[in-house]
């Protein structure tokens, strides 16, 4: 592991099942200390990519490197640096929460990991459940346990595979806060989600994938800028005929404009021959990631 190594590098990854390409020639990377989001509809290939990183699947072609270690050639080094929160709940019928964390620490070579386990149990609000059997826990608690498991060995790269699927708002927000905290401690995060609000809130950069292919990649806010428009609603003091190429609707003194995301309000007013004195009220709705996402998917279908 050197200073220059990416936290994660996926190079030309292809995974075929028979004739079906689950992932097709995918390349992207995650910088150290970055939260990177992989967005895509169900079945886009997000989980297949995660499975290839932790060697649950073997690539048909291409390489995956974690901090410079090829996961196929040096699996134990790569996996020691990686923590994974799988999409589906894992049950542990025979054991209680604390035992599960002790065993899991052991799989990562840690025999005496009491301090870290106590910290995670405390931080994730699992204290009163630590001696409960896993099957007695609620869905939300089981999900917190998955996160604790992924972090027992203080990984440098955290893979979150749709961590908030089926999770209530309170837990979702506390998870987001926790992920941001981990990032500020230097953990790099790969997050897959189809909740775009989540990606917009958390991710420094996102990649949009569809049918196993990477359609667009970039910093979250520049994707939003590139693929969305601003909606501007104006209420004039008195109704007047307005002419502008950006005008989409006029109902007497109420006007609606759609302008490019880089266009300023002054420029709009100028082009429509309006001044601030004509305006009684105004509202601007900025484009969001969801809009950008739908446009990227829409363009790629065309």
């Amino acid at each position, binding site marked *: 592991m050197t200073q220059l190594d990416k936290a994660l590098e996926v190079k030309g990854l292809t995974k075929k099942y028979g004739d079906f390409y689950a992932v097709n020639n995918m390349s992207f990377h995650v910088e150290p200390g970055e939260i990177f989001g992989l967005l895509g509809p169900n079945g886009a290939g997000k989980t297949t990519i995660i499975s290839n990183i932790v060697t649950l699947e073997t690539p048909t072609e291409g390489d995956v490197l974690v901090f410079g270690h090829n996961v196929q050639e040096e699996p134990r080094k790569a996996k020691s640096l990686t923590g994974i929160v799988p999409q*589906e709940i894992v049950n542990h*019928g025979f054991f209680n929460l604390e035992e599960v964390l002790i065993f899991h620490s052991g799989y990562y*070579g*840690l025999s005496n990991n009491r301090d870290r386990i106590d910290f995670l149990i405390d931080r994730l609000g699992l204290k009163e459940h630590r001696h409960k059997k896993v099957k007695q826990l609620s869905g939300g608690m089981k999900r917190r346990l998955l996160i604790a498991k992924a972090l027992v060995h203080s990984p440098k790269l955290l893979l979150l595979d749709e961590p908030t699927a089926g999770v209530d708002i309170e837990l979702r927000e506390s998870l987001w806060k926790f992920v941001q905290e981990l990032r500020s401690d230097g953990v790099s995060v790969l997050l897959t989600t189809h909740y775009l609000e989540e990606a917009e809130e958390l991710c420094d950069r996102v990649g949009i994938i569809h049918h196993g292919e990477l359609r667009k990649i970039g910093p979250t806010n520049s994707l939003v800028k590139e693929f969305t428009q601003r909606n501007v609603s104006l209420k004039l003091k008195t109704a007047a005929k307005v002419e502008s190429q950006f005008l989409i609707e006029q109902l007497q003194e109420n006007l609606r404009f759609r302008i490019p995301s880089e266009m300023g309000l002054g420029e709009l007013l100028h082009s429509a021959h309006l001044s601030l004195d004509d305006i009684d009220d105004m509202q601007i709705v900025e484009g969001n990631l969801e809009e950008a996402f739908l446009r990227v998917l829409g363009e790629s279908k065309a």
Partner: protein
Amino acid sequence: MNKNLKWTPFMMLYWREVRRFSRVAVQTLLAPAVNTTLYLLIFGVSIGRAIKMEEGITYLGFLIPGLIMMGCLNNAFSNASSSVAGSKSAGELEDYKSSPLSSQQIIWALSAGGVSRGLLVSVVTMVVGELFYLNQHGEFLPINNVFLLFYFLLVGGFAFGMMGLSAAIWARSFDHLSAVGNFVLLPLIYLGGVFYSIDNLPGFWQKVSLANPLLYLINGVRYAILGVSDVSLGVSVLVTLIMLLVFLSISVWSLARGSFHRW
């Protein structure tokens, strides 16, 4: 925080296996003890009186070593296989693959878990058997060679633990797995000479029996306890060692090629 990827993952997974079967001791230890008692009562005591054996050996004495080995093999197999099958249905098996646990660590930890349960069942069987023997013959059944007894129990237990692990890796459901137990394992065990000496079989079936590797395990234990056996000791030691290596190879191949995914 001590980090040791060489031994800790193995030790922890082995410890998990022991905890798992001790949580359900009624199923894993008491049930085999009841089985053994029934076999000894029905075959060893009541039917056994009518069976003529070689000089100096009673049918009860002949049966006890067979039951000890049978208990060990059955339990080593079912411990490893039900652990893997249970972990598959819970999604836990994926944890093994995505953590730094190596294939060798998984194989040896799971089969050692099976051996531990197998040995405990063997001890229970031995104790129950000795009590029956004392009751019928007024003395305990002596053990001819303790070292050989351990050798055959360990080799057989590890081999069957590995077999259980491999079967569960390939199985697609619990039904699939129980079919392996019922159609492969059970016939091999019963035809391996637990209840009879192959000398009593017609010539053709004697030859068929010699192809069953379990015959050598069961007769190995019989030699270790009684000092007599249907096949020579050297052949038994060699065949069982080869069997262990074959099952080790099968389990390495199974973990490399089989599925860790949840059912």
